[in-house]
C-alpha cells in the first residue's frame, strides 16, 4: 500500500515538474522590447505612425497572451503562442524602425536636393545683381535687390540650421520661401534689363 502511494506521488511529481517546465518567453519579450526602443529612437511614431501603432498592438497582444498564461495554474501553462507573438512583434518593430529610417532619409534627401536648388538660385540671383545694368535711376533698384538677396541668404542659413537640427519639414518650408525670393530677384532684374534694352 505504502509502496503504491509512493509511486503515485512520484508520478504526480514528475508530471507536475514536466508540465511546469514551460518557461515564459523572457528572451523573446526582451528582444521585442529592444526592437521597440530602437523604433522609437528612429522616430517611428512621427514618420510611420500607423505601422508603429500596429506593431505596438502586436506587442501588447503578446504581453497579454503571456499574462494570460502566467495567471493559469502551472500545470496548464503554455507559452508557445505568446512566444510566437513576441517574435512577430519583434519582426514588426524592426521593420517599423527600418521604414522610419527610410522615410526620414527620403525627406532628408528631398530637402537636400531642394537646398542645392536654392543655393543655385541664390547664386544666380547674385550674378544677375552683379550684371544688372547700372546707371542713373537703376542704382536704387539694385540696392533693393541687394537687400532682398541678403535677406534670402539669411533665410537660407536659418533653414540650414533647422536641417542640421533634424527639422526637415520646417527647413523645407523655409527653403521654398527663399527659393521664391531668389527667383523673383532674377526675374525682376531680367524684366528691368529687357525694358532698358527695349528703350534703346
Amino acid at each position: 500500500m505504502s509502496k503504491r502511494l509512493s509511486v503515485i506521488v512520484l508520478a504526480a511529481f514528475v508530471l507536475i515538474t514536466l508540465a511546469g517546465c514551460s518557461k515564459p518567453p523572457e528572451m523573446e519579450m526582451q528582444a521585442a522590447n529592444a526592437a521597440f526602443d530602437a523604433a522609437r529612437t528612429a522616430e517611428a511614431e512621427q514618420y510611420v505612425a500607423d505601422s508603429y501603432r500596429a506593431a505596438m498592438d502586436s506587442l501588447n497582444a503578446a504581453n497579454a497572451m503571456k499574462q494570460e498564461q502566467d495567471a493559469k495554474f502551472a500545470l496548464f501553462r503554455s507559452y508557445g503562442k505568446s512566444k510566437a507573438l513576441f517574435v512577430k512583434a519583434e519582426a514588426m518593430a524592426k521593420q517599423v524602425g527600418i521604414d522610419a529610417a527610410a522615410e526620414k532619409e527620403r525627406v532628408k534627401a528631398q530637402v537636400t536636393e531642394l537646398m542645392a536648388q536654392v543655393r543655385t538660385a541664390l547664386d544666380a540671383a547674385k550674378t544677375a545683381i552683379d550684371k544688372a545694368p547700372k546707371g542713373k535711376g537703376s542704382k536704387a533698384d539694385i540696392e533693393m535687390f541687394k537687400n532682398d538677396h541678403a535677406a534670402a541668404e539669411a533665410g537660407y542659413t536659418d533653414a540650414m540650421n533647422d536641417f542640421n537640427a533634424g527639422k526637415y519639414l520646417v527647413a523645407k518650408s523655409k527653403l521654398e520661401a527663399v527659393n521664391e525670393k531668389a527667383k523673383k530677384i532674377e526675374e525682376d532684374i531680367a524684366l528691368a534689363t529687357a525694358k532698358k534694352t527695349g528703350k534703346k
Partner: protein
Amino acid sequence: MSKYYRSNLLLCSIIGGFLFIVGCQKPPTAALEGAQAALDSAAAAGAVRYALEPYRQAEATLKTGWMELARQNGRLGPFKNYKMADSLLSLAKLQAGDAKRLARTRINDLATRAESERKALFDELLGWREALNGSLVLYKAENYWSAAELGLNICENLLAQKEYDAAIEAVADARQSLKQVGAVLAEEINNQAQMLVQWRNWVQETVSNSRSNGSYALIVDKSAHRAYLIKGGKVTRTYDCELGYNSARQKLFQGDGATPEGKYHVTKARPYGSKYHKALLIDYPNAMDRRRFAENKAKGIISRRAGIGKNIEIHGDGGRNKDWTEGCVALTNEDMKHLMRFVGVGTPVTIVRRCDKWP
C-alpha cells in the same frame, strides 16, 4: 431516493448553477477594441504631438486593462472576473477621447493664433512699407524690411504644412526685424530733430539775404520734394523736384545716392550741352562739406578710400515720380527752362532736408 442523496443533488445543483452563472462572464473584447480604436483616432488627430501627456496616459491605461483582461482569461472559469479590465479599458477609451479633444483644441488654437499673427505681420509690413515710402529712405531699414517680408513668406509656407509652432516662431523673428526698422527710423528722426534748428537757420539766412538785397535765391526742401524760387524774401515760384535715390540723408561720400544739404551757390550755368536738358552746377563740396567729410573719415564712419563726390547740379529730365539721381536735384524740363531765366552764376542755393518754419 434517500434523503442523503437528495440533499447532495441539491447542493451540486446550487454549486453547478453558481459556477455556470459565474463562468458565463465574457471577456470585454468590445471594450478592448473600443479603447484601441479611440487611441488610434487620437493619434491620427495629432495627440502624439499636441497632447502627448494624456495620450501616453491613455496608452498606459489601455495596456494595464489589456493585461488585466489577459490575467482573467488565464484564470479558471468560476474565478474569472472582468470587471476591473472592463473599467480600465473604458477609462482608456475616455482618456484617449480626452487626448483627441485636447489635441484638436490645441491645434485649432495654434492655427488661429498663427493665422492672426500672420495677418498682423502682413499689416505691419504694409504699414512700414508706407513709412519707408518705397523710396529706399534708408538701406539699413529696407534690409530689415526685406528680412521681415521673407519671414512672412516662410510663415505662410509653414501654415500650409500645418507647422503652427514654427509658423509662430517665424512671425516672431520677422517682428524682430520690423523692430529694427522702427529703431533705425527712430534714430533717423532723432537726428533730424537735432538738425532741424540748423536747417531753419539756413532758410532764415537765405530769405533774409534775399530780402535785404532784393535778389533771387533757390531753397530746396528735400522732404517736401519742392524747390522754392525766392525774390526779395518772397516765394515767387514753387517747383516739384526729384532727388538722389537715397534722398533722406545728408550726403556723406561719392556714390551714396544722397543729395547734399547745406548753403551753396551756382558756380556754372549750362543752358546747352547738359546731359539732362539744362543744368546749374553748385559748389558742392563746400568748406563745411569738406570738414564733415574729413571728420567722418577720421571717425571711421566712412571708408578711407571713399571720395567726397562732385558735380552736383540742378538739372532737367525730371518728372519721373521717384528719386533717381545720384544726388542732383532734377526738375522737369519746362520748370528748368523757367528757372534758368532767373537763376545764374552766384545765385544762392540752400538745400535742407526739411523746414517747417518759414521766416
